[in-house]
């Protein structure tokens, strides 16, 4: 049986890892919805959800039950298959990003060294780009299949916004790749463990990346696709029940994933600040066992911080007008990213020449 000559334990290991990551992400996304409502409430000086359970902690479960038990409506002239495919694609594309994110170091369990990253392909960043561009299809197909003019216009808006901001995002990342010299996320985090975090070398690049990530996630001030005062409700207007839930949920998962990517690229990923991680690994006793879990915790803390910043911005800044959005993307961010790229490139060449012109 040469056909079945896999490394079965490896397959099992990866399968368990993927299951843990996906379910943890879903859990965090569930509570991000709760967090969003609480943050909004605090910023607007009101109590927020506080009825279901202590401090309203069961509110996401109540929302989930509500979503599942609502009536499922498919519009009469809608294309049924594509109508269902839309939210599914959005969800799949959102979750696929987690495959290349390094969640932590190495765990030694059952006599195996388990790396807390599903796969460390040498083109990790490009993989993320490919997945992000697949996410657009979820919105476009859903908006078109609804057979509703408002949904269609809003999905086209979403697509043009995503394409415009992907350009600036890619250009800002090229400067980062100049600095790190490779495209694998695992390698990048390892470099940041021994050197400074990349934010020190690329502050402008990070700012551009952050703005573009916000636009890719359709978060306010970039939530033009859901501009309810112009487009009724946006691309998911005809959706009800859990299909609507998937669209809303995919937005939160995108937020988590872009926070994780930002933390990994610019803020050291799972690197514990002010602590030498290798020292922790080489020490004996309880810290040796706990080290990978501390790293995962650190990454999660960084993710939660970024999510909070996302929410903070959402409830502080009003929405852009569409021409302002396009002007910002094409006339401000892309030139800035290009200048950043030129400066970074010339500095690196100067450094290779030992600072001689």
């Amino acid at each position, binding site marked *: 049986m040469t056909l079945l000559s896999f490394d079965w334990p490896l397959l099992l290991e990866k399968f368990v890892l993927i299951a843990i990551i996906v379910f943890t992400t879903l859990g965090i996304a569930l509570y991000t919805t709760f967090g969003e409502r609480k943050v909004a409430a605090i910023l607007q000086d009101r109590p927020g959800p506080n009825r279901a359970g202590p401090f309203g902690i069961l509110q996401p479960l109540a929302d989930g039950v509500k979503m599942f038990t609502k009536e499922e409506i498919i519009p009469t002239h809608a294309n049924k298959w594509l109508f269902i495919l839309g939210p599914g694609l959005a969800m799949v594309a959102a979750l696929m990003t987690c495959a290349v994110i390094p969640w932590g170091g190495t765990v030694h369990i059952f006599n195996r060294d388990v790396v807390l990253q599903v796969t460390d392909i040498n083109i990790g960043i490009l993989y993320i780009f490919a997945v992000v561009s697949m996410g*657009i299809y979820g919105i476009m197909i859903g908006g078109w299949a609804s057979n509703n003019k408002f949904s269609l216009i809003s*999905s086209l808006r979403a697509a043009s916004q995503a394409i415009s901001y*992907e350009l600036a995002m890619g250009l800002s990342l090229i400067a980062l790749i100049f600095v790190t010299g490779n495209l694998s996320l695992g390698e990048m985090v390892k470099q940041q463990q021994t050197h400074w975090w990349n934010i020190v070398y690329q502050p402008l690049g990070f700012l551009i990346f952050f703005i573009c990530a916000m636009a890719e996630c359709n978060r306010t001030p970039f939530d033009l696709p859901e501009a309810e005062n112009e487009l009724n409700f946006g691309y998911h207007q005809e959706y009800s029940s859990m299909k609507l839930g998937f669209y809303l949920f995919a937005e939160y998962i995108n937020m988590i994933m872009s926070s994780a990517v930002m933390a990994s690229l610019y803020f050291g990923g799972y690197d514990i600040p002010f602590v030498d991680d290798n020292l922790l690994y080489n020490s004996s006793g309880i810290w040796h066992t706990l080290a990978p879990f501390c790293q995962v915790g650190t990454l999660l803390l960084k993710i939660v911080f970024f999510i909070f910043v996302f929410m903070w911005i959402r409830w502080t800044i009003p929405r852009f007008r569409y021409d302002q959005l396009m002007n910002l993307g094409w006339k401000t961010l892309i030139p800035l990213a290009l200048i950043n790229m030129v400066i970074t490139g010339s500095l690196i060449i100067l450094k290779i020449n030992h600072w001689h012109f």
Partner: protein
Amino acid sequence: MNLIQIIFWFLSSFAVISAIMVLVSKSPVHSVLWLIAVFFAISGHYILLNAQFLAIVNLIVYAGAIMVLFLFVIMMMNLNKDTDPQKNIWIKLAGAVSGGCLLMVLVSLVKQATEINGKEAMLGKGDIGLIGTLGKVLFTDFVVPFEISSVLFLSAMVGAVVIGKKDSKLENN
């Protein structure tokens, strides 16, 4: 048949069936979606050849950007099977015959090419498709064609801007 062969046959049949569906489906939006499926299958082939960079760039550029624009235009124009003009049966027949002739020429060309006769594709090994190797080759051995092709892209971009630019004289009148 080992695992790689099974994957190869699966991907190939998936690509061919999707390509046929591009032609057969009546709605242009469905055609575009099937074309995206073809790109995915071809990217799978690239990965089998250990050309990960090509695979992912194929997805980013073709499936992620160009097809989105196609879809954009088709959705914006609201093209569907009612508005799509149905071609004459003779024109369809002529298209099928000429397409078949082209296929025959290509197949006979591949069969006669002595360079590839009896050679096997490098599956899962060979590092020419990896990003580091590819970058070195492009910027040393093939730097002139590479730069010339970038000039071609630039001229296409300038052309698009010129076509898309509003005529200021027309607007003033």
